[in-house]
Protein backbone atom coordinates (compact mmCIF):
# COMPACT_ATOMS: atom_id res chain seq x y z
CA UNK A 1 0.00 0.00 0.00
CA UNK A 2 1.17 3.49 -0.76
CA UNK A 3 2.56 5.22 2.35
CA UNK A 4 0.89 8.60 1.79
CA UNK A 5 2.71 11.28 3.84
CA UNK A 6 -0.62 12.85 4.85
CA UNK A 7 -1.82 9.58 6.41
CA UNK A 8 1.51 8.87 8.12
CA UNK A 9 1.49 12.46 9.41
CA UNK A 10 -2.07 12.11 10.62
CA UNK A 11 -1.70 8.78 12.42
CA UNK A 12 1.59 9.70 14.14
CA UNK A 13 0.62 13.27 15.10
CA UNK A 14 -2.86 12.36 16.32
CA UNK A 15 -1.42 9.31 18.10
CA UNK A 16 1.03 11.58 19.93
CA UNK A 17 -1.70 14.10 20.77
CA UNK A 18 -4.19 11.54 22.04
CA UNK A 19 -1.44 9.74 23.95
CA UNK A 20 -0.48 13.00 25.70
CA UNK A 21 -4.11 13.83 26.43
CA UNK A 22 -4.63 10.37 27.93
CA UNK A 23 -1.51 10.55 30.12
CA UNK A 24 -2.12 14.16 31.21
CA UNK A 25 -5.79 13.70 32.07
CA UNK A 26 -5.43 10.45 33.97
CA UNK A 27 -2.05 11.46 35.43
CA UNK A 28 -3.54 14.64 36.88
CA UNK A 29 -6.45 12.65 38.26
CA UNK A 30 -4.22 10.21 40.17
CA UNK A 31 -1.85 12.98 41.19
CA UNK A 32 1.34 12.19 39.28
CA UNK A 33 1.19 15.41 37.22
CA UNK A 34 2.07 18.40 39.42
CA UNK A 35 -0.50 21.18 39.80
CA UNK A 36 1.83 23.67 38.13
CA UNK A 37 -0.65 25.58 35.90
CA UNK A 38 1.57 26.27 32.88
CA UNK A 39 2.89 22.76 32.79
CA UNK A 40 -0.63 21.35 32.53
CA UNK A 41 -1.98 23.97 30.16
CA UNK A 42 1.01 23.88 27.82
CA UNK A 43 0.82 20.08 27.84
CA UNK A 44 -2.86 20.13 26.89
CA UNK A 45 -2.30 22.77 24.22
CA UNK A 46 0.53 20.73 22.71
CA UNK A 47 -1.69 17.66 22.72
CA UNK A 48 -4.63 19.47 21.11
CA UNK A 49 -2.30 21.19 18.61
CA UNK A 50 -0.84 17.85 17.58
CA UNK A 51 -4.31 16.32 17.25
CA UNK A 52 -5.60 19.26 15.20
CA UNK A 53 -2.56 19.25 12.91
CA UNK A 54 -3.07 15.52 12.37
CA UNK A 55 -6.76 15.90 11.59
CA UNK A 56 -6.06 18.70 9.11
CA UNK A 57 -3.30 16.64 7.50
CA UNK A 58 -5.72 13.74 7.05
CA UNK A 59 -8.01 15.90 4.91
CA UNK A 60 -5.13 16.63 2.51
CA UNK A 61 -5.49 13.32 0.69
CA UNK A 62 -9.24 13.73 0.14
CA UNK A 63 -10.59 14.41 -3.33
CA UNK A 64 -13.19 16.76 -1.81
CA UNK A 65 -11.97 18.11 1.58
CA UNK A 66 -14.88 20.59 1.68
CA UNK A 67 -17.27 17.66 2.06
CA UNK A 68 -15.33 16.17 4.99
CA UNK A 69 -18.21 16.95 7.38
CA UNK A 70 -20.23 14.24 5.65
CA UNK A 71 -17.81 11.68 7.10
CA UNK A 72 -19.53 12.07 10.49
CA UNK A 73 -22.74 10.46 9.28
CA UNK A 74 -22.04 6.72 8.94
CA UNK A 75 -20.84 5.78 12.42
CA UNK A 76 -23.13 2.75 12.42
CA UNK A 77 -20.99 0.86 9.91
CA UNK A 78 -17.77 2.75 9.20
CA UNK A 79 -14.73 2.90 11.49
CA UNK A 80 -13.52 5.98 9.63
CA UNK A 81 -16.77 7.73 10.46
CA UNK A 82 -16.58 6.58 14.10
CA UNK A 83 -13.05 7.94 14.29
CA UNK A 84 -14.24 11.33 13.02
CA UNK A 85 -17.16 11.48 15.45
CA UNK A 86 -15.03 10.51 18.45
CA UNK A 87 -12.21 12.86 17.43
CA UNK A 88 -14.58 15.83 17.39
CA UNK A 89 -16.37 14.69 20.55
CA UNK A 90 -13.08 14.42 22.48
CA UNK A 91 -12.41 18.14 21.95
CA UNK A 92 -15.28 18.96 24.32
CA UNK A 93 -13.95 17.37 27.54
CA UNK A 94 -10.35 18.27 26.56
CA UNK A 95 -11.19 21.97 26.22
CA UNK A 96 -13.27 21.86 29.41
CA UNK A 97 -10.28 20.36 31.17
CA UNK A 98 -7.99 23.08 29.80
CA UNK A 99 -10.45 25.74 30.98
CA UNK A 100 -10.59 24.16 34.42
CA UNK A 101 -6.82 24.08 34.70
CA UNK A 102 -6.47 27.71 33.61
CA UNK A 103 -9.13 28.93 36.04
CA UNK A 104 -8.51 27.18 39.34
CA UNK A 105 -6.23 24.15 38.91
CA UNK A 106 -8.99 22.09 40.41
CA UNK A 107 -9.81 18.53 39.54
CA UNK A 108 -13.13 18.09 41.20
CA UNK A 109 -16.68 17.62 39.95
CA UNK A 110 -17.09 18.42 36.31
CA UNK A 111 -13.33 18.59 35.71
CA UNK A 112 -12.78 15.09 37.03
CA UNK A 113 -15.55 13.85 34.75
CA UNK A 114 -13.95 15.79 31.89
CA UNK A 115 -10.57 14.20 32.59
CA UNK A 116 -12.00 10.69 32.51
CA UNK A 117 -14.10 11.42 29.40
CA UNK A 118 -11.14 13.00 27.60
CA UNK A 119 -8.92 10.00 28.37
CA UNK A 120 -11.58 7.54 27.24
CA UNK A 121 -12.28 9.61 24.11
CA UNK A 122 -8.58 9.72 23.27
CA UNK A 123 -8.18 5.95 23.64
CA UNK A 124 -11.37 5.24 21.67
CA UNK A 125 -10.33 7.54 18.82
CA UNK A 126 -6.93 5.84 18.44
CA UNK A 127 -8.65 2.46 18.61
CA UNK A 128 -10.91 3.52 15.72
CA UNK A 129 -7.85 4.61 13.72
CA UNK A 130 -6.41 1.12 14.15
CA UNK A 131 -9.74 -0.52 13.30
CA UNK A 132 -9.98 1.38 10.00
CA UNK A 133 -7.03 -0.70 8.86
CA UNK A 134 -7.86 -3.86 10.78
CA UNK A 135 -11.31 -4.01 9.16
CA UNK A 136 -10.04 -4.40 5.57
CA UNK A 137 -10.01 -8.11 4.57
CA UNK A 138 -8.11 -7.56 1.27
CA UNK A 139 -5.04 -6.36 3.19
CA UNK A 140 -4.10 -9.44 5.13
CA UNK A 141 -1.21 -7.83 7.03
CA UNK A 142 -3.65 -5.40 8.68
CA UNK A 143 -6.71 -7.64 8.97
CA UNK A 144 -5.69 -9.18 12.30
CA UNK A 145 -6.26 -8.64 16.04
CA UNK A 146 -2.86 -7.00 16.73
CA UNK A 147 -3.34 -3.98 14.46
CA UNK A 148 -5.55 -1.83 16.71
CA UNK A 149 -3.65 -2.60 19.98
CA UNK A 150 -0.39 -1.64 18.24
CA UNK A 151 -1.87 1.75 17.33
CA UNK A 152 -2.92 2.20 20.97
CA UNK A 153 0.50 1.18 22.29
CA UNK A 154 2.46 3.52 20.02
CA UNK A 155 0.12 6.41 20.89
CA UNK A 156 0.68 5.74 24.60
CA UNK A 157 4.42 5.42 24.06
CA UNK A 158 4.86 8.76 22.23
CA UNK A 159 2.39 10.48 24.56
CA UNK A 160 4.20 9.27 27.69
CA UNK A 161 7.62 10.22 26.28
CA UNK A 162 6.32 13.73 25.51
CA UNK A 163 4.74 14.19 28.96
CA UNK A 164 7.89 12.84 30.60
CA UNK A 165 9.93 15.46 28.75
CA UNK A 166 7.52 18.21 29.82
CA UNK A 167 7.78 17.15 33.47
CA UNK A 168 11.57 17.12 33.31
CA UNK A 169 11.55 20.50 31.56
CA UNK A 170 9.44 22.01 34.34
CA UNK A 171 11.71 20.44 36.94
CA UNK A 172 9.05 18.09 38.25
CA UNK A 173 9.85 14.61 36.94
CA UNK A 174 7.75 11.79 38.29
CA UNK A 175 8.99 8.22 38.37
CA UNK A 176 5.54 6.91 37.46
CA UNK A 177 5.43 8.71 34.08
CA UNK A 178 8.98 7.60 33.27
CA UNK A 179 8.15 4.00 34.05
CA UNK A 180 4.92 4.27 32.04
CA UNK A 181 6.95 5.44 29.05
CA UNK A 182 9.40 2.53 29.44
CA UNK A 183 6.56 0.04 29.75
CA UNK A 184 4.77 1.45 26.71
CA UNK A 185 7.95 1.30 24.59
CA UNK A 186 8.52 -2.35 25.46
CA UNK A 187 4.84 -3.28 25.10
CA UNK A 188 4.53 -1.59 21.71
CA UNK A 189 7.60 -3.27 20.30
CA UNK A 190 6.73 -6.70 21.67
CA UNK A 191 3.43 -6.50 19.77
CA UNK A 192 5.16 -5.10 16.71
CA UNK A 193 7.66 -7.96 16.68
CA UNK A 194 4.74 -10.42 16.82
CA UNK A 195 3.10 -8.48 13.97
CA UNK A 196 6.24 -8.66 11.83
CA UNK A 197 6.56 -12.40 12.55
CA UNK A 198 2.99 -12.90 11.40
CA UNK A 199 3.74 -11.02 8.18
CA UNK A 200 6.58 -13.42 7.40
CA UNK A 201 4.24 -16.38 7.81
CA UNK A 202 1.54 -14.79 5.66
CA UNK A 203 3.88 -14.40 2.70
CA UNK A 204 3.98 -18.13 2.09
CA UNK A 205 0.33 -18.91 2.83
CA UNK A 206 -1.71 -16.26 1.10
CA UNK A 207 -3.92 -16.47 -1.97
CA UNK A 208 -2.09 -16.60 -5.30
CA UNK A 209 -2.79 -15.42 -8.82
CA UNK A 210 -3.96 -18.95 -9.57
CA UNK A 211 -6.41 -19.06 -6.68
CA UNK A 212 -7.53 -15.44 -7.06
CA UNK A 213 -8.47 -15.89 -10.71
CA UNK A 214 -9.75 -19.40 -10.07
CA UNK A 215 -7.99 -20.47 -13.26
CA UNK A 216 -5.89 -23.26 -11.88
CA UNK A 217 -6.16 -25.31 -8.74
CA UNK A 218 -2.51 -26.29 -8.89
CA UNK A 219 -0.34 -24.72 -11.47
CA UNK A 220 0.89 -21.79 -13.38
CA UNK A 221 -1.06 -18.60 -13.92
CA UNK A 222 0.93 -15.60 -14.93
CA UNK A 223 0.28 -12.34 -16.61
CA UNK A 224 0.64 -12.44 -20.36
CA UNK A 225 -0.70 -9.00 -21.19
CA UNK A 226 -1.44 -6.29 -18.65
CA UNK A 227 -4.93 -4.76 -18.76
CA UNK A 228 -3.54 -1.30 -19.40
CA UNK A 229 -0.33 0.00 -20.89
CA UNK A 230 0.34 2.78 -18.37
CA UNK A 231 -0.05 2.93 -14.63
CA UNK A 232 -3.46 3.50 -13.05
CA UNK A 233 -5.07 4.38 -9.72
CA UNK A 234 -4.94 0.80 -8.45
CA UNK A 235 -1.21 0.39 -9.13
CA UNK A 236 -0.39 3.80 -7.66
CA UNK A 237 -2.44 3.20 -4.53
CA UNK A 238 -1.89 -0.51 -3.90
CA UNK A 239 1.11 -1.53 -5.99
CA UNK A 240 3.72 0.23 -3.87
CA UNK A 241 6.80 -1.90 -3.35
CA UNK A 242 9.82 0.39 -3.11
CA UNK A 243 9.84 0.02 0.66
CA UNK A 244 9.98 -3.75 0.72
CA UNK A 245 13.45 -3.74 -0.76
CA UNK A 246 14.75 -1.75 2.22
CA UNK A 247 12.42 -3.26 4.81
CA UNK A 248 15.26 -4.85 6.80
CA UNK A 249 17.29 -1.65 7.09
CA UNK A 250 14.20 0.41 7.92
CA UNK A 251 13.11 -2.13 10.53
CA UNK A 252 16.55 -1.93 12.12
CA UNK A 253 16.31 1.88 12.21
CA UNK A 254 12.80 1.65 13.68
CA UNK A 255 14.16 -0.54 16.47
CA UNK A 256 17.11 1.79 17.00
CA UNK A 257 15.15 5.06 17.11
CA UNK A 258 11.89 3.72 18.53
CA UNK A 259 13.01 1.08 21.00
CA UNK A 260 16.71 1.17 21.97
CA UNK A 261 17.43 4.92 22.06
CA UNK A 262 14.31 6.08 23.98
CA UNK A 263 14.65 3.15 26.38
CA UNK A 264 18.27 3.95 27.29
CA UNK A 265 17.83 7.73 27.28
CA UNK A 266 14.72 7.60 29.47
CA UNK A 267 16.44 5.26 31.90
CA UNK A 268 19.40 7.67 32.04
CA UNK A 269 17.08 10.63 32.56
CA UNK A 270 15.41 8.79 35.43
CA UNK A 271 18.71 7.77 37.00
CA UNK A 272 20.50 11.12 36.71
CA UNK A 273 19.31 14.24 38.48
CA UNK A 274 21.67 16.81 37.04
CA UNK A 275 21.31 19.21 34.18
CA UNK A 276 21.39 17.02 31.04
CA UNK A 277 18.16 15.21 31.99
CA UNK A 278 16.12 17.75 30.01
CA UNK A 279 18.20 17.09 26.92
CA UNK A 280 18.05 13.32 27.46
CA UNK A 281 14.25 13.37 27.81
CA UNK A 282 13.91 15.59 24.73
CA UNK A 283 16.10 13.35 22.58
CA UNK A 284 14.29 10.27 23.91
CA UNK A 285 10.97 11.79 22.79
CA UNK A 286 12.23 12.95 19.38
CA UNK A 287 13.95 9.63 18.73
CA UNK A 288 10.76 7.80 19.69
CA UNK A 289 8.81 9.90 17.20
CA UNK A 290 11.30 9.09 14.43
CA UNK A 291 10.96 5.40 15.30
CA UNK A 292 7.16 5.58 15.15
CA UNK A 293 7.21 7.42 11.81
CA UNK A 294 9.47 4.67 10.41
CA UNK A 295 7.18 2.00 11.86
CA UNK A 296 4.14 3.69 10.31
CA UNK A 297 5.85 4.02 6.94
CA UNK A 298 6.63 0.29 6.97
CA UNK A 299 3.07 -0.46 8.11
CA UNK A 300 1.82 0.86 4.77
CA UNK A 301 4.75 -0.01 2.50
CA UNK A 302 4.91 -3.65 3.63
CA UNK A 303 1.17 -4.36 3.41
CA UNK A 304 0.05 -6.14 0.26
CA UNK A 305 -3.39 -5.85 -1.31
CA UNK A 306 -5.09 -8.81 -3.00
CA UNK A 307 -5.74 -6.79 -6.17
CA UNK A 308 -2.04 -7.02 -6.99
CA UNK A 309 -2.47 -10.78 -7.45
CA UNK A 310 -4.32 -9.98 -10.66
CA UNK A 311 -1.28 -8.08 -11.90
CA UNK A 312 1.51 -10.47 -10.98
CA UNK A 313 1.89 -14.10 -11.88
CA UNK A 314 3.64 -16.74 -9.89
CA UNK A 315 4.28 -20.42 -9.99
CA UNK A 316 2.44 -22.25 -7.26
CA UNK A 317 4.06 -25.44 -6.14
CA UNK A 318 1.70 -26.37 -3.36
CA UNK A 319 -2.03 -26.57 -3.74
CA UNK A 320 -3.80 -23.54 -2.23
CA UNK A 321 -5.90 -24.39 0.79
CA UNK A 322 -9.08 -22.88 -0.55
CA UNK A 323 -9.99 -22.53 -4.16
CA UNK A 324 -13.30 -21.56 -5.64
CA UNK A 325 -12.43 -23.12 -8.96
CA UNK A 326 -13.51 -26.62 -9.79
CA UNK A 327 -10.72 -28.92 -10.81
CA UNK A 328 -11.00 -28.96 -14.55
CA UNK A 329 -7.90 -30.30 -16.23
CA UNK A 330 -7.94 -33.90 -17.34
CA UNK A 331 -4.65 -35.69 -16.69
CA UNK A 332 -2.50 -35.96 -19.76
CA UNK A 333 -2.25 -39.50 -21.19
CA UNK A 334 1.36 -38.95 -22.12
CA UNK A 335 4.36 -39.21 -19.80
CA UNK A 336 4.62 -35.90 -18.03
CA UNK A 337 7.42 -33.48 -18.45
CA UNK A 338 7.87 -30.36 -16.45
CA UNK A 339 7.52 -27.36 -18.65
CA UNK A 340 10.66 -25.30 -18.89
CA UNK A 341 10.31 -21.86 -17.34
CA UNK A 342 10.31 -18.83 -19.59
CA UNK A 343 12.96 -16.76 -17.86
CA UNK A 344 13.23 -13.98 -20.37
CA UNK A 345 9.58 -13.26 -20.77
CA UNK A 346 8.88 -13.72 -17.08
CA UNK A 347 11.54 -11.21 -16.29
CA UNK A 348 10.17 -8.80 -18.86
CA UNK A 349 6.70 -9.01 -17.32
CA UNK A 350 8.00 -8.49 -13.82
CA UNK A 351 10.15 -5.59 -14.87
CA UNK A 352 7.20 -3.97 -16.59
CA UNK A 353 5.08 -4.66 -13.54
CA UNK A 354 7.55 -3.09 -11.14
CA UNK A 355 8.07 -0.14 -13.43
CA UNK A 356 4.35 0.39 -13.59
CA UNK A 357 3.86 0.15 -9.87
CA UNK A 358 6.85 2.19 -8.88
Amino acid at each position, binding site marked *: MKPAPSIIGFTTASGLGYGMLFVLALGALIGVIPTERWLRVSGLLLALGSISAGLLSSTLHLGHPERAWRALSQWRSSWLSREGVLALFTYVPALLLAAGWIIDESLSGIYAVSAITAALGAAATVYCTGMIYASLPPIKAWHQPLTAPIYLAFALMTGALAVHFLLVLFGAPHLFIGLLALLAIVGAFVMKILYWRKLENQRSHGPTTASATGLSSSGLVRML*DPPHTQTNYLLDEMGFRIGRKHAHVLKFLAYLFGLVAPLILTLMALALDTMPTTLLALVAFLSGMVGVVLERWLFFAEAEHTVMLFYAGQHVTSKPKTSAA*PAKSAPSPHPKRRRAPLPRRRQAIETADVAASD
Partner: protein
Amino acid sequence: MTSWPKQPPAKRLGLVIDLDICVGCHACVVNCKEWNTGGYPAPLSDQEPYGASARGAWLNRVHSYEVSDGEVEDGAGGRTVHFPKSCLHCENAHCVTVCPTGASYKREEDGIVLVDEEKCIGCGLCAWACPYGARELDGAEGVMKKCTLCIDRIYNETFSPVEQEPACVATCPARARHFGDFADPNSAVSRLTEERGGYDLMAEMGYRPTNKYLPPRSAKPINDGIGAPDALTPVAEGGFLGWLDRVLTDLSKGPS
Protein backbone atom coordinates in the same frame (compact mmCIF):
# COMPACT_ATOMS: atom_id res chain seq x y z
CA MET B 1 -26.94 4.58 4.47
CA THR B 2 -23.84 2.43 4.23
CA SER B 3 -25.13 -0.68 5.92
CA TRP B 4 -26.03 -3.63 3.75
CA PRO B 5 -29.71 -4.10 2.88
CA LYS B 6 -31.53 -5.71 5.80
CA GLN B 7 -33.49 -8.05 3.56
CA PRO B 8 -31.79 -9.88 0.72
CA PRO B 9 -32.58 -7.86 -2.40
CA ALA B 10 -35.60 -9.14 -4.35
CA LYS B 11 -33.47 -9.16 -7.48
CA ARG B 12 -29.75 -9.90 -7.69
CA LEU B 13 -28.63 -8.38 -10.96
CA GLY B 14 -25.19 -9.21 -12.24
CA LEU B 15 -23.04 -10.63 -14.99
CA VAL B 16 -21.83 -14.02 -16.09
CA ILE B 17 -18.41 -13.85 -17.73
CA ASP B 18 -17.44 -16.79 -19.91
CA LEU B 19 -13.67 -17.22 -19.75
CA ASP B 20 -13.87 -20.00 -22.33
CA ILE B 21 -14.93 -17.76 -25.19
CA CYS B 22 -13.66 -14.30 -24.26
CA VAL B 23 -11.25 -13.38 -27.06
CA GLY B 24 -9.68 -10.45 -25.23
CA CYS B 25 -10.70 -7.82 -27.77
CA HIS B 26 -11.32 -5.17 -25.07
CA ALA B 27 -14.53 -4.06 -26.81
CA CYS B 28 -16.39 -4.30 -23.47
CA VAL B 29 -13.72 -2.08 -21.89
CA VAL B 30 -14.04 0.57 -24.58
CA ASN B 31 -17.81 0.52 -24.82
CA CYS B 32 -18.07 0.73 -21.02
CA LYS B 33 -15.87 3.82 -21.05
CA GLU B 34 -17.79 5.28 -23.97
CA TRP B 35 -21.21 4.80 -22.40
CA ASN B 36 -20.28 5.77 -18.87
CA THR B 37 -18.32 8.88 -19.74
CA GLY B 38 -21.73 10.32 -20.59
CA GLY B 39 -23.73 8.38 -18.01
CA TYR B 40 -22.18 9.90 -14.90
CA PRO B 41 -22.77 13.41 -13.55
CA ALA B 42 -19.14 14.05 -14.51
CA PRO B 43 -17.25 12.36 -17.35
CA LEU B 44 -14.96 9.40 -16.69
CA SER B 45 -11.85 11.47 -17.07
CA ASP B 46 -8.44 10.68 -18.51
CA GLN B 47 -5.25 12.53 -17.68
CA GLU B 48 -2.87 13.23 -20.57
CA PRO B 49 -4.93 10.94 -22.82
CA TYR B 50 -2.64 11.53 -25.80
CA GLY B 51 0.55 12.18 -23.81
CA ALA B 52 3.43 9.95 -22.85
CA SER B 53 1.86 8.82 -19.58
CA ALA B 54 -1.82 8.48 -20.35
CA ARG B 55 -4.02 7.32 -17.50
CA GLY B 56 -7.64 7.48 -16.56
CA ALA B 57 -10.56 5.96 -14.72
CA TRP B 58 -11.98 2.82 -16.32
CA LEU B 59 -14.69 0.64 -14.87
CA ASN B 60 -13.79 -2.58 -16.64
CA ARG B 61 -10.36 -4.01 -17.40
CA VAL B 62 -9.29 -7.15 -19.26
CA HIS B 63 -6.27 -9.01 -17.91
CA SER B 64 -4.68 -11.77 -20.00
CA TYR B 65 -3.03 -14.79 -18.43
CA GLU B 66 -0.98 -17.75 -19.47
CA VAL B 67 -2.48 -20.74 -17.72
CA SER B 68 -1.28 -24.30 -17.37
CA ASP B 69 -1.47 -26.96 -14.74
CA GLY B 70 2.19 -27.14 -14.07
CA GLU B 71 3.05 -30.44 -15.63
CA VAL B 72 2.07 -30.49 -19.26
CA GLU B 73 3.12 -31.81 -22.63
CA ASP B 74 5.16 -29.32 -24.59
CA GLY B 75 2.96 -27.24 -26.79
CA ALA B 76 -0.27 -28.74 -25.61
CA GLY B 77 -1.02 -27.57 -22.09
CA GLY B 78 -0.43 -23.85 -21.88
CA ARG B 79 -3.24 -21.58 -22.95
CA THR B 80 -4.20 -17.95 -22.95
CA VAL B 81 -7.18 -16.88 -20.85
CA HIS B 82 -8.57 -13.38 -21.14
CA PHE B 83 -10.02 -12.23 -17.88
CA PRO B 84 -12.40 -9.25 -17.80
CA LYS B 85 -12.82 -7.73 -14.36
CA SER B 86 -15.32 -5.13 -13.17
CA CYS B 87 -17.42 -4.61 -10.04
CA LEU B 88 -18.92 -7.93 -8.91
CA HIS B 89 -21.77 -6.27 -6.93
CA CYS B 90 -21.03 -8.40 -3.85
CA GLU B 91 -23.66 -9.26 -1.30
CA ASN B 92 -21.19 -8.63 1.53
CA ALA B 93 -19.72 -5.52 -0.05
CA HIS B 94 -17.21 -4.09 2.44
CA CYS B 95 -16.68 -1.13 0.09
CA VAL B 96 -20.16 -0.04 1.20
CA THR B 97 -19.80 -0.45 4.96
CA VAL B 98 -16.41 1.31 5.21
CA CYS B 99 -17.72 4.45 3.46
CA PRO B 100 -17.82 7.25 6.05
CA THR B 101 -20.20 9.53 4.14
CA GLY B 102 -22.97 7.27 2.88
CA ALA B 103 -21.90 7.89 -0.72
CA SER B 104 -21.37 4.18 -1.30
CA TYR B 105 -24.51 2.10 -1.12
CA LYS B 106 -26.09 -1.17 -2.17
CA ARG B 107 -29.58 -0.90 -3.60
CA GLU B 108 -32.29 -2.78 -1.74
CA GLU B 109 -34.30 -3.54 -4.87
CA ASP B 110 -31.70 -5.15 -7.13
CA GLY B 111 -28.42 -5.37 -5.21
CA ILE B 112 -26.51 -2.98 -7.47
CA VAL B 113 -23.63 -1.20 -5.68
CA LEU B 114 -23.45 2.50 -6.53
CA VAL B 115 -21.60 5.69 -5.53
CA ASP B 116 -23.44 8.96 -4.97
CA GLU B 117 -20.92 11.38 -6.44
CA GLU B 118 -22.46 14.35 -4.65
CA LYS B 119 -21.58 12.83 -1.28
CA CYS B 120 -18.21 11.17 -2.08
CA ILE B 121 -15.23 12.87 -0.41
CA GLY B 122 -12.69 10.80 -2.36
CA CYS B 123 -10.99 9.26 0.68
CA GLY B 124 -10.33 6.06 -1.27
CA LEU B 125 -11.11 3.71 1.62
CA CYS B 126 -13.72 1.82 -0.46
CA ALA B 127 -11.08 1.05 -3.09
CA TRP B 128 -8.86 -0.37 -0.35
CA ALA B 129 -11.78 -2.48 0.91
CA CYS B 130 -12.38 -4.07 -2.51
CA PRO B 131 -10.30 -7.24 -3.00
CA TYR B 132 -10.94 -7.19 -6.75
CA GLY B 133 -9.80 -3.68 -7.64
CA ALA B 134 -13.17 -2.66 -9.01
CA ARG B 135 -13.06 1.00 -7.97
CA GLU B 136 -10.92 3.76 -9.41
CA LEU B 137 -10.70 7.38 -8.30
CA ASP B 138 -11.43 9.90 -11.02
CA GLY B 139 -8.32 12.04 -11.44
CA ALA B 140 -10.26 15.14 -12.45
CA GLU B 141 -13.36 14.88 -10.26
CA GLY B 142 -11.76 13.54 -7.08
CA VAL B 143 -14.62 11.07 -6.55
CA MET B 144 -14.77 7.29 -6.74
CA LYS B 145 -16.03 5.69 -9.94
CA LYS B 146 -17.27 2.16 -10.39
CA CYS B 147 -19.42 -0.08 -12.58
CA THR B 148 -23.11 0.85 -12.28
CA LEU B 149 -24.22 -2.24 -14.20
CA CYS B 150 -25.33 0.47 -16.67
CA ILE B 151 -28.28 1.33 -14.50
CA ASP B 152 -29.15 4.04 -17.03
CA ARG B 153 -29.50 1.41 -19.78
CA ILE B 154 -31.07 -1.58 -18.04
CA TYR B 155 -34.03 0.44 -16.76
CA ASN B 156 -34.22 2.79 -19.75
CA GLU B 157 -37.70 2.44 -21.16
CA THR B 158 -36.87 4.45 -24.26
CA PHE B 159 -34.59 1.58 -25.28
CA SER B 160 -35.90 -1.49 -27.03
CA PRO B 161 -35.87 -4.54 -24.74
CA VAL B 162 -32.80 -6.08 -26.43
CA GLU B 163 -30.84 -2.93 -25.75
CA GLN B 164 -31.75 -2.88 -22.06
CA GLU B 165 -28.51 -4.53 -20.98
CA PRO B 166 -25.14 -3.19 -19.87
CA ALA B 167 -22.92 -1.66 -22.54
CA CYS B 168 -20.23 -4.33 -22.05
CA VAL B 169 -22.76 -7.11 -22.63
CA ALA B 170 -24.38 -5.42 -25.61
CA THR B 171 -21.08 -4.91 -27.40
CA CYS B 172 -19.36 -8.26 -26.80
CA PRO B 173 -18.80 -9.83 -30.24
CA ALA B 174 -18.25 -13.31 -28.79
CA ARG B 175 -21.22 -13.21 -26.39
CA ALA B 176 -18.84 -13.95 -23.55
CA ARG B 177 -20.85 -11.72 -21.21
CA HIS B 178 -24.40 -12.25 -20.02
CA PHE B 179 -26.61 -10.06 -17.87
CA GLY B 180 -29.49 -11.19 -15.69
CA ASP B 181 -31.10 -11.84 -12.34
CA PHE B 182 -29.38 -14.43 -10.15
CA ALA B 183 -32.27 -14.46 -7.66
CA ASP B 184 -34.38 -16.19 -10.30
CA PRO B 185 -33.19 -19.83 -10.54
CA ASN B 186 -34.65 -20.11 -14.05
CA SER B 187 -32.98 -17.04 -15.51
CA ALA B 188 -30.46 -17.56 -18.30
CA VAL B 189 -27.57 -16.47 -16.06
CA SER B 190 -28.59 -18.83 -13.24
CA ARG B 191 -28.86 -21.76 -15.65
CA LEU B 192 -25.55 -20.94 -17.32
CA THR B 193 -23.85 -20.79 -13.94
CA GLU B 194 -25.40 -24.10 -12.96
CA GLU B 195 -24.53 -25.90 -16.22
CA ARG B 196 -20.99 -24.64 -16.62
CA GLY B 197 -19.86 -24.63 -12.98
CA GLY B 198 -19.71 -20.87 -12.64
CA TYR B 199 -17.62 -19.80 -9.67
CA ASP B 200 -17.02 -16.86 -7.33
CA LEU B 201 -13.71 -14.98 -7.41
CA MET B 202 -11.83 -15.42 -4.14
CA ALA B 203 -14.78 -17.04 -2.39
CA GLU B 204 -12.62 -17.42 0.73
CA MET B 205 -12.75 -13.64 1.25
CA GLY B 206 -16.44 -13.97 2.11
CA TYR B 207 -17.66 -11.09 -0.07
CA ARG B 208 -20.19 -13.32 -1.89
CA PRO B 209 -19.88 -11.66 -5.30
CA THR B 210 -22.95 -11.66 -7.54
CA ASN B 211 -21.03 -11.88 -10.81
CA LYS B 212 -19.97 -15.40 -11.77
CA TYR B 213 -17.09 -16.62 -13.91
CA LEU B 214 -17.42 -19.65 -16.20
CA PRO B 215 -14.16 -21.64 -16.30
CA PRO B 216 -12.46 -22.39 -19.63
CA ARG B 217 -13.47 -25.80 -20.99
CA SER B 218 -10.66 -28.34 -20.89
CA ALA B 219 -8.54 -28.06 -24.01
CA LYS B 220 -7.72 -30.94 -26.32
CA PRO B 221 -4.11 -31.46 -27.43
CA ILE B 222 -3.28 -29.45 -30.55
CA ASN B 223 -2.36 -32.46 -32.73
CA ASP B 224 -5.42 -34.45 -31.88
CA GLY B 225 -7.49 -35.74 -34.76
CA ILE B 226 -6.21 -33.78 -37.73
CA GLY B 227 -3.76 -36.43 -38.89
CA ALA B 228 -0.65 -34.27 -38.67
CA PRO B 229 2.65 -36.16 -38.29
CA ASP B 230 4.61 -35.71 -35.10
CA ALA B 231 7.59 -34.25 -36.93
CA LEU B 232 8.67 -33.65 -40.52
CA THR B 233 10.96 -36.52 -41.71
CA PRO B 234 12.75 -36.73 -45.07
CA VAL B 235 10.66 -38.62 -47.63
CA ALA B 236 13.07 -38.73 -50.61
CA GLU B 237 14.31 -42.34 -50.81
CA GLY B 238 15.14 -43.11 -54.45
CA GLY B 239 16.10 -41.41 -57.73
CA PHE B 240 18.01 -38.19 -58.06
CA LEU B 241 16.60 -36.61 -54.90
CA GLY B 242 17.42 -39.75 -52.94
CA TRP B 243 21.00 -39.67 -54.24
CA LEU B 244 21.28 -35.93 -53.41
CA ASP B 245 19.95 -36.61 -49.91
CA ARG B 246 22.63 -39.25 -49.32
CA VAL B 247 25.41 -37.02 -50.69
CA LEU B 248 24.36 -34.05 -48.58
CA THR B 249 23.98 -36.24 -45.50
CA ASP B 250 27.50 -37.62 -45.99
CA LEU B 251 28.87 -34.14 -46.53
CA SER B 252 27.24 -32.82 -43.41
CA LYS B 253 28.84 -35.66 -41.40
CA GLY B 254 32.22 -34.46 -42.60
CA PRO B 255 35.30 -36.54 -43.51
CA SER B 256 35.78 -39.48 -41.20
